[in-house]
């Protein structure tokens, strides 16, 4: 369970930083110039730090079945595979529901181009975060239940 919480918190942090970096670029860039703000460096730093932490965790938590490459899909045995499969189905459903809601929000709102871009980034990032969160919560739920 710890490996999934570790992985998903790292993933959520990564998506949040990517979202901040993209929003900063979209709002500060003009048609001819693309500006990379400081959020990109923080995002890059997070990727490097998280990568190192993942590597170290995979070396110290072998018994728990954490794999650097498999990430949140790391499994120790067949019971955890069943837990992971159920959590994946739940996360898929939650993400689809959220994306349908996001499409409806997009269709209803009447926004300018920049606002549309920002809203698009925020909604898509939120969709990914909801997928990560749903997977983590479902994993914890099924791990305790099965």
């Amino acid at each position, binding site marked *: 369970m710890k490996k999934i919480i570790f992985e998903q918190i790292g993933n959520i942090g990564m998506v949040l930083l990517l979202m901040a970096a993209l929003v900063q670029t979209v709002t500060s860039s003009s048609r001819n110039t693309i500006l990379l703000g400081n959020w990109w460096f923080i995002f890059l730093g997070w990727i490097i730090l998280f990568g190192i932490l993942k590597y170290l965790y995979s070396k110290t938590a072998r018994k728990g*079945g954490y794999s650097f490459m498999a990430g949140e899909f790391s499994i*120790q*045995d*067949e*019971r*955890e595979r*069943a837990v992971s499969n159920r959590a994946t189905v739940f996360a898929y459903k939650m993400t689809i529901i959220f994306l349908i809601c996001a499409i409806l929000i997009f269709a209803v709102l009447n926004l300018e181009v920049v606002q549309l871009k920002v809203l698009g980034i925020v909604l898509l990032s939120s969709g990914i975060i909801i997928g990560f969160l749903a997977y983590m919560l479902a994993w914890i739920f099924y791990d305790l*239940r*099965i």
Partner: protein
Amino acid sequence: MDIVNQAKKYRKLHRLTQEALAQAVGVSRRTIISLEKGKYTPSLLLALQLADFFQVNISEIFYLDKQMGI
């Protein structure tokens, strides 16, 4: 129809801890706990591995509870 399992009985007969049995069949202790509580139905492979480990027929460890009905 439920599956009854006698994994706990056979583990105790062999005087094994859950950890030792888990290591012997290559799963986590958590899986053995869930299996013994009847929360988790093992795959055919794990059921066969357990039967092989205890040197009994698979049907002596796992069988259908016909009284439960469908």
